[in-house]
């Protein structure tokens, strides 16, 4: 009897917590699709005018996990980048709308007619955190560090087209390319600028020219940065300190945000966004970005060596349904990897594939498959939404007699099997990143590229992608990339599913944050007002 009472109490407790705003599903109101191109911070309830920036305060940021390395040149994670971009800078940096570059440590530049010579004029009066003055020798040093074959640089391939670099004087740097490469400027974001002669292991103590300097990294607990008083941009930064805390559990992150334990969070889970937006003490930032999910096929073996079969599968993907049900409306249907807001996007393919199982069945019949098609679909629980997408897809496939066997693999194993060994038939995964159109195509679809996990090899496509890199006129490039998209959509090697919205949140008294579509956390312009 007592036992039953205790059980009842427990159930009541659970129900009481279920009713709290923090654990409700999307509110009954308008879940709303994503608002493309909106870089403005603030939810609809934000105060109209926060006033003049105020100096001081500490921003405590929840990261999705522990960073891999302190040295940005060796780091391969998004969370790593979120920390690094506040400490180390580059010659140029992407604009917030991700459609070009803007000056950072370089003030202006010229490109030769033949596209082989880039001359940069460097910003003067810039200091590193260790007191050294920034000059062209630091650029040369950083470049050589990156290209040193004994140094494990993660993004070396971004600079392979550079034949040599020279510094005619202290504030000029000239890059000579082996061949014209239209994406060179955006690739320069990988060339992090370090001070020459620092004699310090950047993995233990990071030094750069950024608005914040590195203080300490307590493993598993926090990374602390503090304001760099001699930062080159007048009047910035505003914050005294930035503390990054890895909080992998979403529920914990949310509670910390609501109770003020942290005042900035990246990666808000989609199911909680609607509820959090109701909280007047929290601002939500949303931006449709460059994270996209796709269903991909290994084209070297049956059944997916047959284009008709691949196309059939594309008609079994319920993009709208997935965006609503799995991502709570924080996604937009996609046909290709490049976002619709991009200047090289081909509007002609916007409605290429829809959800039409009947059409899928016809295509399969044409390909010679009755209801005897079966294949495996490899996903990883590191991205739980992919598993749900796989399940929805498998259900649609089952309705026309196709048998899909969903295989879940731990992430490194997934990489091993799918990407490295090509031991798969179909997969669903998400991809992130890209500014120049080349980023969205060459490394993924060109013959022989490591990331071309589908083992696609189309000479016509290869030629177009190579041309796209060489040509510098934007109009001409757009035409080339339109053609590329036409081919890719027809080939159906990767059936894109959705573009995801990036969602971040901060306390209501945090101002000045500029959201980008690629999970940037640049706190240079952020300030905290007194009122919460």
């Amino acid at each position, binding site marked *: 009897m*007592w*036992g039953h009472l205790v059980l009842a109490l427990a159930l009541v407790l659970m129900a009481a917590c279920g009713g*709290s705003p923090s654990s409700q599903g999307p509110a009954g109101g308008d879940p709303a699709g994503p608002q493309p191109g909106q870089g403005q911070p603030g939810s609809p309830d934000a105060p109209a005018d926060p006033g003049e920036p105020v100096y001081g305060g500490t921003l405590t940021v929840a990261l999705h996990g522990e960073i891999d*390395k302190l040295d940005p040149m060796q780091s391969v994670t998004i969370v790593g980048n979120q920390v690094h971009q506040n400490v180390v800078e580059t010659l140029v940096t992407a604009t917030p709308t991700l459609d070009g570059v803007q000056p950072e440590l370089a003030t202006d530049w010229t490109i030769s007619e033949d596209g082989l010579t880039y001359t940069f004029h460097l910003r003067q009066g810039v200091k590193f955190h260790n007191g050294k003055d920034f000059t062209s020798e630091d650029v040369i040093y950083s470049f050589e560090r990156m290209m040193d074959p004994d140094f494990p640089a993660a993004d070396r*391939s971004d600079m392979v087209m550079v034949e040599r670099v020279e510094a005619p004087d202290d504030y000029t740097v000239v890059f000579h390319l082996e061949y014209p490469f239209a994406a060179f400027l955006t690739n320069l974001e990988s060339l992090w600028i370090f001070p020459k002669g620092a004699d310090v292991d950047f993995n233990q103590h990071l030094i750069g020219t950024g608005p914040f300097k590195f203080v300490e990294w307590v493993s598993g*607990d926090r990374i602390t940065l503090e304001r760099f008083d001699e930062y080159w941009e007048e009047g910035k930064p505003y914050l005294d300190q930035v503390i990054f805390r*890895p909080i992998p559990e979403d529920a914990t992150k949310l509670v910390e945000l609501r109770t003020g334990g942290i005042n900035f969070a990246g990666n808000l889970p989609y199911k909680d966004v609607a509820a959090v937006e109701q909280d007047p003490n929290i601002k939500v930032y949303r931006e449709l970005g460059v994270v996209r999910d796709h269903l991909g096929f290994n084209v070297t073996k049956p059944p997916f060596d047959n284009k008709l079969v691949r196309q059939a599968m594309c008609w079994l993907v319920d993009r709208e349904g997935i965006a609503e049900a799995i991502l709570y409306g924080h996604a937009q249907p996609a046909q290709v990897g490049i976002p619709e807001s991009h200047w090289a996007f081909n509007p002609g393919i916007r409605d290429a594939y829809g959800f039409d199982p009947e059409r899928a069945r016809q295509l399969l019949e044409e390909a010679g498959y009755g209801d005897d098609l079966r294949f495996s679909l490899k996903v990883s629980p590191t991205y739980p939404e992919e598993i749900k997408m796989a399940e929805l897809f498998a259900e649609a496939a089952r309705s026309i007699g196709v048998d899909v066997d969903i295989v879940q693999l731990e992430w*490194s194993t997934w990489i091993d099997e799918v990407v490295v060994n090509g031991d798969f038939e179909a997969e669903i995964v998400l991809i992130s990143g890209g500014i120049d159109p080349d980023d969205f195509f060459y490394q993924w679809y060109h013959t022989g590229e490591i990331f071309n996990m589908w083992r696609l090899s189309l000479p016509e496509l290869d030629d177009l992608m190579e041309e796209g890199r060489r040509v510098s006129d934007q109009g001409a490039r757009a035409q080339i990339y339109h053609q590329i998209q036409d081919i890719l959509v027809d080939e159906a090697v990767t059936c894109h599913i959705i573009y995801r919205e990036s969602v971040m949140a901060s306390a209501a008294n945090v101002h000045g944050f500029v959201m980008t579509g690629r999970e940037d956390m640049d706190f240079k312009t952020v300030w905290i007002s007194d009122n919460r």
Partner: protein
Amino acid sequence: MSTYIIRRLLQTVPVLLGISLAVFVLIEFTPGDPVAAILGLQASPDEVERLRRAMGLDRPWYIRYGLWLAGVVQGDFGLSYQNGRPVTELIVQRLPATVELAVAAQLAATLLALPIGVISAVRQYSLTDYFFTSVALFGISMPNFWFSILLILVFGLHLGWLPASGFVPVAAGLGTHLKHLVLPVTALALFNVGALARFTRSSMLEVLSQDFIRTARAKGLGDRIVIYRHALKNALIPTLTVVGLQLGFLLGGSVIVEQVFAWPGIGWLSVTAINQRDYPVVQGVVLLVAAAVVWINVLVDISYTWVNPRIRYDTGGR
């Protein structure tokens, strides 16, 4: 007695060797490449080979194991593949948090479970017994992931009494330090309280039904003396074994609780290391935890002599 202790400690060496070898081989043959985890996939095959050679990963596994062992004997556990920091430094930085959590949780669990178990046994089949049994079953059945989040919601969000996550060193204030400790300790102690209470109860019941207890009662000894001096001391022996085992498990680092509470312990460290195929870190943590578990069991065995004077480990004749 001291010969016994020395003998036991020496016996731990082959055990630890065996464990470290087994783990080394297991992780070696798990698919997934540490070099890929470091360089990302965009590295050319040349670069991958180069780094592989630089890290010594091109040598056969038994050679690498031998080299690692040679280093360990000198106190050098190598460098983390991921961030290049010495493994010993990483472990030293993360271990105290786990040890504190484990010891505090086990202490709390034991202090709660022993009285509950004893009372339940002494008042078997009473209302009190049923109540405590339910509590114990709750503890055993509820997943600690769910319970952790429940604690955070109730005490962190709704009541606002305690912080939701994180670790604050004692130097920053004993009060704040303890406040951060309460919830994770509660979550971690949940299962152990239940299991230990049930075990204590049945151990007590078994002892209480024995002849010598009936004799003691027949002699006219008061209930209190019978229970505490005679029964409990005997029931404690198996119970202490369980306490030791539970503490050993907790020292392995409760990954779930550490992740949910963002508690910077070695459980979380080892899972991240396994996912990244960071062999040196995995090896170091496993060896350390294995050593801790083994030595705790030695301590438990030694503590039997204190609990029950009739138990002796002298090599002298018997």
